[in-house]
């Protein structure tokens, strides 16, 4: 096993997946902004996807399963990003509107 043949063994991918997951986890703790946490979540999802793909490539009986799973993860991520964007927008708007007279809206 040399550095140049790393891509042929499963362990590399698993370690990479673990690394991405762990770094995402760290980000979840360390980041304080909504967007930062979203980024960390994306990293964790990426780690999981790498793992799926690796197992799919090296171990699975039906090599479509992992790919489909990864595709689903992408779909989820896209949905998540869309929601996150709108939340950011809403929070931003709300935050601004506190400055103006719209505060009463909050009390109904």
């Amino acid at each position, binding site marked *: 096993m040399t550095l140049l043949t790393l891509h042929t063994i499963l362990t590399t991918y698993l370690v990479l997946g673990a690394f991405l997951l762990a770094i995402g986890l760290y980000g979840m703790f360390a980041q304080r*902004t909504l967007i930062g946490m979203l980024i960390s979540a994306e990293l964790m999802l990426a780690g999981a996807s790498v793992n799926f793909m690796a197992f799919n490539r090296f171990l699975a009986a039906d090599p479509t399963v992992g790919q489909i799973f990864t595709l689903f993860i992408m779909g989820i991520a896209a949905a998540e990003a869309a929601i996150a964007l709108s939340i950011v927008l809403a929070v*931003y708007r709300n935050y601004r509107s506190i400055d103006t007279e719209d505060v009463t809206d909050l009390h109904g």
Partner: protein
Amino acid sequence: MSVLASSDCKETFVLNLGPQHPATHGVLRVKLTMDGEYIRHAEPVLGYIHRMHEKMGENRTWAQFMPNTGRLDYLSALSYNHGYVLAVERAAGIAVPERAEYIRVITVELNRISSHLVWFGAFILDLGGFTPLLYAFDDREIILDLLQAVTGSRLTYCYFRFGGVYNDIEPDFITGTLAFIKRLRERMPMYHNLVTKNIILIKRLKDIGFVPAEMCRKYGATGPVLRGAGVGYDVRRAEPYSVYPELDFDIPTYPEGDCMARYMVRLDEIEQSMRIIEQACAKLPDGPVMAEKAPKIIKPAKGDYYAAVEAARGSFGVRLVSDGTTTPYRLKLRSPSYSNLSLFGEASRGMLLPDALALMGSLDLVIPEIDR
């Protein structure tokens, strides 16, 4: 976990348009307070090309101020020449021979067409179309050639004199002018097909940039801006000067008050100017072009005098205060774009940036005339 934990929540930002910005046609600066691409507040900042014309007027003789008028609004310099000579002639009581009046009208109207052509091109350029500008310049070059043959300059004419014009026209000027009008008549449908009917342009101009008549009145806007709001005010008709009463022409008005209306008013004015020139060429009498009794040294009687002309951008007024000497005591230039621009702040509120620029383009600004 606020998104905005540390940002200083300012909902708007200030965008400085200019003083060097392609859209401001020179050195106007507009301070825009923007909310995204929406304009919350627009404040034009003037004076970047303030050239002290009014101060210069007090330092020179009446005749020496003439070249300055050509540099106020360099696109329709002859209108400004005309306004100034009218005021001084009124003050000094100089009568102008009829031939000179006709020559003045022909050249002024030619100049108005060339000014509108530049406006047309520059306006489309503001909207992102480049080719119409050069087509308009093609036609304009012919006008400039005609005027250059008469006046000797291409742009900043100093052609009118108190009591007449600098020199007489040549016969081939008339034939050239009529040939040019024929050519422009043939070109106008091309402009309409290329630009006016274009769906993108219609979408960008229709119902954009409302300037209602009441706003025009409050800000003193005149010219195509006012006529685009449905008020048919035109100094050539309201306070007839020169030989305009003898000429038959319409004052195009459009009631909508949007950019499209102002655009159409100007294009129609080109047609009307062509009519005026044709009539004037037909009626052109023989005779001198300079009043014989015109004094060499002008000393108007004490008092103040006003004269207004319809320049390409609106009513240009000259207020002279004379103390009976060879230099003006006070010389006030009332420039149309100054008033037209002053409504920009109110009219552009809540507009998108590109629409506001369309509005600004449709006001047809010439900055040196505003800053004077």
